[in-house]
């Protein structure tokens, strides 16, 4: 039986190697929490760092150990969060889905420039030079640092300023941290509300030269709001999304048309 020899030889090798591996696996075993693997599988896996940990694996480890709250991942979907709660054995927590919002509408045809710089074209670098190349010191510079930072492809630059594709945005907040002008902010996705697409604290009279899409602090919106949700401070209107009912009165009154709907009131797919 010629077949017998190879079968026996290979079988013996398999036996010996299998034994060695079996012994090694027991001797060198590392205790891992089985919940960590389950949580890790539920995280998005984009390693965006929005949670503050060094990647999804580190976040899962922290959640499983109890070093991080169950909702540590800002980019997680509601269903996945429910499952993580189940894995960790805690009560279900509702997650408020958020999306990024660009608080500037100073596109190339609206905003005026202070200088033109021929050199490094990143927001961080330009922002370091007299607060940016636009006359408005609070403007979105439109060189795309946020676009590069986004792990979900939810940002793009259009007509000189950033644009968020809210369908793709998971609300991880990395772009908010990246923007050197702090023009981006997270707004809840599930509500009906309005927000001001401007960050400029410059006086109304000056805005004529600075940017045609800038908030002039006229307070027409504040007067129009029946719920006290709109406040003008430092020549800039701000809407409290908690108080806002989404009636849209402020948006109608705004002479610059820079109050737009967010969340369920969003007109277009981008904000």
């Amino acid at each position, binding site marked *: 039986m*010629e077949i017998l020899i190879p*079968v026996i030889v290979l*079988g013996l090798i398999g036996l010996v190697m299998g034994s060695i*591996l079996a012994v090694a696996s027991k001797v060198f075993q590392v205790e891992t929490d089985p919940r960590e693997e389950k949580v890790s599988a539920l995280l998005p896996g984009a390693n965006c760092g929005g949670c503050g940990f060094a990647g999804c694996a580190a976040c899962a480890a922290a959640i499983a150990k109890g070093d991080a709250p169950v909702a540590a991942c800002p980019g997680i979907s509601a269903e996945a969060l429910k499952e993580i709660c189940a894995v960790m054995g805690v009560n279900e927590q509702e997650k408020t889905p958020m999306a990024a919002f660009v608080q500037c509408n100073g596109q190339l045809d609206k905003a005026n420039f202070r200088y033109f710089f021929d050199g490094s074209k990143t927001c961080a670098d330009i922002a370091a030079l007299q607060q940016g190349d636009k006359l408005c010191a609070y403007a979105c510079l439109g060189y795309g640092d946020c676009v590069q930072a986004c792990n979900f492809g939810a940002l793009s630059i259009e007509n000189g300023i950033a644009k968020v594709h809210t369908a793709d945005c998971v609300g991880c907040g990395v772009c908010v941290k990246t923007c050197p002008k702090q023009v981006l902010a997270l707004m809840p996705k599930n509500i009906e509300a309005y927000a001001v697409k401007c960050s400029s604290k410059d006086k109304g009279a000056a805005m004529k030269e600075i940017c045609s899409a800038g908030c002039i602090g006229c307070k027409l919106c504040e007067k129009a709001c029946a719920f006290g949700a709109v406040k003008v401070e430092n020549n800039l209107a701000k809407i409290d999304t908690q108080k806002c009912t989404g009636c849209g009165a402020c948006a109608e009154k705004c002479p610059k048309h820079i109050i737009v709907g967010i969340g369920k009131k969003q007109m277009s797919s981008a904000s």
Partner: protein
Amino acid sequence: MDKQNTVFRMIFTLVAIAVVVSVALAFVNAKTEPVILQNNENQLQESLKSVIRAEKFEILSETEQETVYAAKNGETVVGYCVVNSQKGYGGDVKVMTGVDTDGKVTAIEILEHAETPGLGANAEKMRLNPNLQAKQKKLV
């Protein structure tokens, strides 16, 4: 998956795979071995024939370093083929030399080499150099 990593399962899986694998290999080997041997034999015969024109070849002597064939037409010996190897640049160079009954070299064929293509490998293109002096070879 931790239930899976028991000592029994680990050993059993590897042994099972080893057994199945060896049966499969033995089967394929049984089918291909005769063909491979035939291929090798054909190649050898081809080389021998290209070096000395004769009907059949018999092994006269065979050592680690050198094999000598007697080339025969019928029962008369018309020449000899010596196969040996020397160190080349990229490894051993296996050469077959045909010698006729006067001791003159009839042809040289390179069987195996590991030389650089375009440089040492060009030796393959070289056939017998007519100016080559044949040394008398003492044959056992």
